[in-house]
């Protein structure tokens, strides 16, 4: 199945899920639809990870590995969230581990973006070291929030990583004008980061569920788009660093 077809299927699933929510369907139907979409997404993400890990051996492939680890982290966090809510019957607002993991998954993508940077050796080295160190701050804060049991800190958007990812993506976008695979990867990371922060802001400001559902329905689509771009990068044999 081509990448385009997969994206169309996931777009259709997103629309279907939102129609379910809009139509005011019974809670169970919405919950089951939500769970089914996420289970499919997780399977696709894991398949992408396997394909990225297979045959991408050797030096110079760090963006693939970082991206694949990021997808693994997202898949694990989604599985955890699904099971916590539907099997454990836990409160959706209390998924601390999934929150922490999503925060850290961003760091894998920051690492992937950093590996794509090109330029003079010294300048790139300074950017990589600085951005890498800065990207650790938000997850460290979340980790601390979990240890001292201070939930408000958990749901603050990791603004530092959002700004970092978006600016790195813009930089890569303009730095590699002829490299469509790298640009697509940078764009998909930015899309994911912005969606993530939008969702957290909706939770913080206690927005109506319809808006939360809209953003929630877009997650699988963005995840799969990210995975597909990672595969495209690997197929074209993009070299990093």
């Amino acid at each position: 199945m081509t990448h385009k077809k997969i994206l169309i299927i996931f777009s259709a699933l997103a629309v279907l899920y939102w129609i379910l929510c809009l139509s005011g369907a019974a809670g169970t139907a919405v919950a089951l639809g939500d769970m089914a979409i996420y289970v499919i997404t997780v399977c696709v993400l894991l398949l992408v990870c396997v394909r990225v890990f297979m045959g991408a051996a050797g030096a110079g492939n760090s963006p693939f590995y970082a991206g694949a680890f990021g997808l693994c982290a997202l898949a694990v966090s989604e599985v955890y969230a699904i099971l916590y809510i539907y099997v454990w019957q836990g409160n959706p607002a209390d998924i601390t581990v999934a929150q922490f993991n999503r925060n850290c998954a961003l760091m894998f993508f920051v690492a992937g973006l950093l590996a794509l940077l090109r330029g003079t050796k010294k300048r790139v080295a300074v950017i990589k070291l600085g951005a890498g160190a800065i990207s650790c701050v938000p997850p460290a804060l979340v980790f601390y929030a979990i240890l001292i049991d201070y939930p408000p800190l958990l749901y603050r958007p990791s603004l530092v990583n959002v700004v970092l990812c978006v600016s790195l993506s813009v930089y890569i976008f303009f730095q590699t004008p002829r490299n469509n695979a790298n640009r697509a990867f940078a764009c998909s990371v930015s899309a994911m980061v912005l969606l993530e922060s939008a969702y957290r802001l909706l939770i913080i400001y206690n927005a109506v569920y319809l808006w939360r559902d809209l953003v929630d329905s877009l997650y699988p689509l963005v995840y799969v788009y990210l995975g597909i771009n990672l595969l495209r990068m690997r197929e074209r044999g993009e070299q990093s660093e």
Partner: protein
Amino acid sequence: MSDLSFQFLSGFIATVIPLLFVAVMIDDAGSRRIILYFCWGVFAGVLAYDLNNYFGSAWGQSQRMTLAVAPMIEEVCKGLPMLLFLNVKKYPRVTKLIVFCAMASGVGFSIQESTYYFAISSREFVDLASLVVRTLTTALMHGMTTAAFGIGLLLFSKHQHIIIPMIFGLFSLCASIHALFNLLLYTQLAFISMIIPIAMFVAGWFFIRSQGSG
């Protein structure tokens, strides 16, 4: 020091001191390193127990402690010495050794934890089957989550500039898999929590075999 904390500590001393003698006798640096990482794992069991108690006091329910605090603390304690491998110039031929040492640390931790779990459990609730099942799944889970951390380090050890975000990410990934295992263990889907470590072991085995000699 509580009785249990003393039991943990005495288990650590009784295990580690004899193993240190073995480590001194062994010529092969790689094998010695694996034994020392195993000893660290046993010590990490003591350290994690005290840290869990310290941070867990802020948490009212043991369930939330099991799902959120313990996995993070335990994964950090087990994986901490793996950071020594970051200096790849100093250890040029360590490809598989990183993974073996990581697994040894995780298994050492698990042995310490399981021993005292059974020591404090009532005889009525612990039979041979549960002992075998817990040892098989928990030991493998602890070993393989740390091994996953080692595999990540192995892949990125040559890319020093992006290693900082990767380390944090790897810790989180291991902690989440650990939390997922703990979450499933007490539900009707417990069989999945048994499959997770076995699947990770098989994947790790194939990964190690694909690396060739070195």
